[in-house]
């Protein structure tokens, strides 16, 4: 029992117990109000969410390590915070569902025959090695508890590109001349750079020896190509948050652009016209998770573990599923979804009824089928992962200059 309960003077009315609070710093990928309310309901303490954009979140997690207890982000930018010494290892023996966590996170692919993908596959950052570095050799301590994840592609206008056909679309469409003047890119460097790199390699403009770890020369070539295209008026601009991307589609200002899964449910009358692609080269994947702040000890550390364990209990995974994201222990989520929801989101079935998103609005219409199909089909086609590559400092600075020259495409 916390100190304050014992020292409270005896009163006629029941003692007022100061609720303990756990502070979570993260991004709007997982820090949904619906998730927070569920957590407070299930856990014996309050949960505060500090919702930041990707870059601010990493920066503050590293440089301001005392003002949060849990860090919720992605594996691909974990290096930044981990090697700054802001986090502590998680003991897997304290994670009740550890054995039910899928092999995509634990060993790199859903089966031993699937390719791990270029770049920062979560398994390469998962296990804490004896020398304090992160690697894929299994160890009893991990850096981040794997939770929500997904595979991304780009969105395209069917009126311009037509149907995808049996082979699927190609990342080349993202820099397609037919869409000149109607292309937008996401500003986040660990994501946007790879959207265009996949496109440039798919259309034959450039080749990368290892697209997940580009050299300085390759980065220079890529930025040179983008500058040329910019001068030719290819881009309408960049977007920072998904709602900006959705507004660009609703206002009919883009024919193809970087786009994330939850946005496809928010396109209004453009739904069915602006579609999620199924690129033949494969997806760009990401994997989220939660980490423990370095400063946690004793009772506060126990709360941290309670919260991590709670993420794998099912209800939060169901919220994630309703915006299209997968959980690392899918079977644990199943009981909290309707048969129709499970069928559409995880099994790739045709929706048998309208489906609601986390906030209760309808995001999927009866008769739709998820592009790319079932979970296993989609995650077995990962071309690469969001990545903070070795030359990130160099690449991100060049990217930032390029994005600044585009301007934000605020509608």
């Amino acid at each position, binding site marked *: 029992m916390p100190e304050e309960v014992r020292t409270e003077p005896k009163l006629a009315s029941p003692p007022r117990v100061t609720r303990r609070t756990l502070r979570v710093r993260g991004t709007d990928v997982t820090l949904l109000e619906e998730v927070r309310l569920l957590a407070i309901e299930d856990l014996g303490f309050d949960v505060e969410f500090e919702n930041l954009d990707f870059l601010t979140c990493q920066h503050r997690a590293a440089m301001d390590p005392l003002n949060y207890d849990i860090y919720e982000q992605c594996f691909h930018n974990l290096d930044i915070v981990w*090697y700054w010494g802001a986090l502590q290892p998680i003991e897997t023996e304290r994670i009740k569902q550890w054995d039910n966590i899928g092999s995509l996170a634990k060993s790199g692919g859903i089966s031993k025959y699937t390719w791990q993908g270029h770049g920062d596959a979560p398994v390469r950052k998962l296990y804490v090695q004896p020398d*304090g570095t992160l690697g894929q050799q299994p160890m009893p301590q991990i850096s981040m508890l794997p939770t929500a994840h997904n595979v991304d592609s780009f969105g395209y206008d069917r009126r311009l590109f037509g149907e995808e056909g049996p082979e699927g679309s190609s990342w080349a469409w993202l820099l397609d001349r037919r869409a000149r003047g109607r292309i937008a890119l996401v500003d986040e460097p660990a994501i946007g750079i790879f959207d265009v790199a996949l496109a440039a390699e798919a259309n034959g403009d450039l080749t990368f020896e290892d697209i997940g770890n580009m050299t300085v020369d390759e980065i220079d070539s890529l930025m040179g190509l983008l500058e040329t295209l910019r001068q030719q008026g290819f881009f309408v601009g960049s977007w920072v948050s998904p709602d900006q991307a959705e507004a660009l589609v609703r206002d009919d200002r883009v024919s193809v652009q970087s786009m994330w899964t939850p946005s496809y449910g928010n396109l209004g009358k453009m739904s069915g016209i602006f579609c999620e692609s199924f690129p033949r080269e494969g997806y760009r994947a990401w994997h989220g998770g939660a980490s423990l702040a370095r400063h946690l000890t004793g009772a506060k550390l126990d709360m941290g573990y309670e919260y991590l364990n709670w993420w794998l209990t099912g209800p939060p995974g169901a919220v994630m599923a309703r915006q299209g994201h997968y959980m690392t222990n899918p079977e644990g989520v199943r009981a909290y979804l309707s048969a129709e929801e499970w069928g559409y989101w995880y099994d790739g079935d045709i929706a048998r009824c309208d489906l609601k998103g986390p906030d209760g609005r309808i995001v999927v219409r009866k008769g739709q089928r998820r592009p790319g199909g079932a979970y296993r089909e989609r995650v077995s086609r990962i071309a690469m992962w969001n990545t903070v590559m070795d*030359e*990130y*400092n160099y690449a991100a600075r060049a990217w930032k200059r390029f994005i600044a020259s585009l301007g934000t495409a605020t509608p």
Partner: protein
Amino acid sequence: MTQIIMPRTPAGQGQEPLYETISRVLRHNITSGRLPAGLVLIEGPIAKLMQTSRAPVQASLRMLNAEGLIHRFRGRGYLVGAAGATSQPVRKSLDEYDFDIPEASRTALAIRGTWIRVYDQVEAEVAACQIFGEFRVIETELAEYLGVSRTVARDVLSRLNERGLLRKGASSHWLAGPLTARTLREKFELRSIMEPAALRLATDYIDPVQIAAIRARIDRGDARDAAELEGALMRHCLGRAPNGALVEIIANNRLLLSSMDKALIDLGLPVDVVALDQYRTLFDLIGLRQVDAATEYLKEHLRILSFKSLARLKIVALIPEIETIPCYLVKV
């Protein structure tokens, strides 16, 4: 390249070449008997005492050798006294003698001392900016900034060039950076080739008492950070290798890396306790004269350090160029 020399220093000062001044001081101390016959003279300690670089000391030692005041011997450096005298080499610090720097020479050296201080400042600034990208160094701005002549500014930049912190661009501009992952990887690759080799060469020259003292510091928790122990490794182990050229290349190769570490520490990078532990083990092995194990361990330590440095460089991407970058450095 021709440039107008702007004489800022008052006339009459600093006109004499530095090696002349140093020669005069050494000559004075030898002929007056302050330095005994057989004393080993090495340029490093003399340079330190006179607050100059090593090059002019080398020149003046060659001069005194030609004059017959000192002579070469089988070891490193020179012996005081004319050749032929069968004196045993005396290896003692100059501090132990009543070494005298006459007032006039002192003034001349003090001016040079300013140069050294100026150099250290510029070296630190030029190295630190490189994590933020590529910079052009404007010579006139630098002279203005330091309040020195363009000649001095150019000397400073030439020295940085020699040490690999600057280069000349296609249009003869001085360029610094960017410090990329490629640069970092290359420098660590060089380290893992040269430093274990130097450690092996140095084996018989390492002072066990020093190593024990360092170990005691680590055990008491007095070692501030990994940078301190890295410095100790350089000074007391690698630097003892009887190959001055190798030691110099190692020192120059480390410059950019240690200034990156310093820049990151200034940004708030906490002490790396794993690295402290690794240094403890390394100094244990060196203290035990386990040469093979120590060199292998040093290699592994450098591999891990390289990996961590690459990861730490990534956070710099999130930090805007600091306003404290001095005005003579202009972003390319």
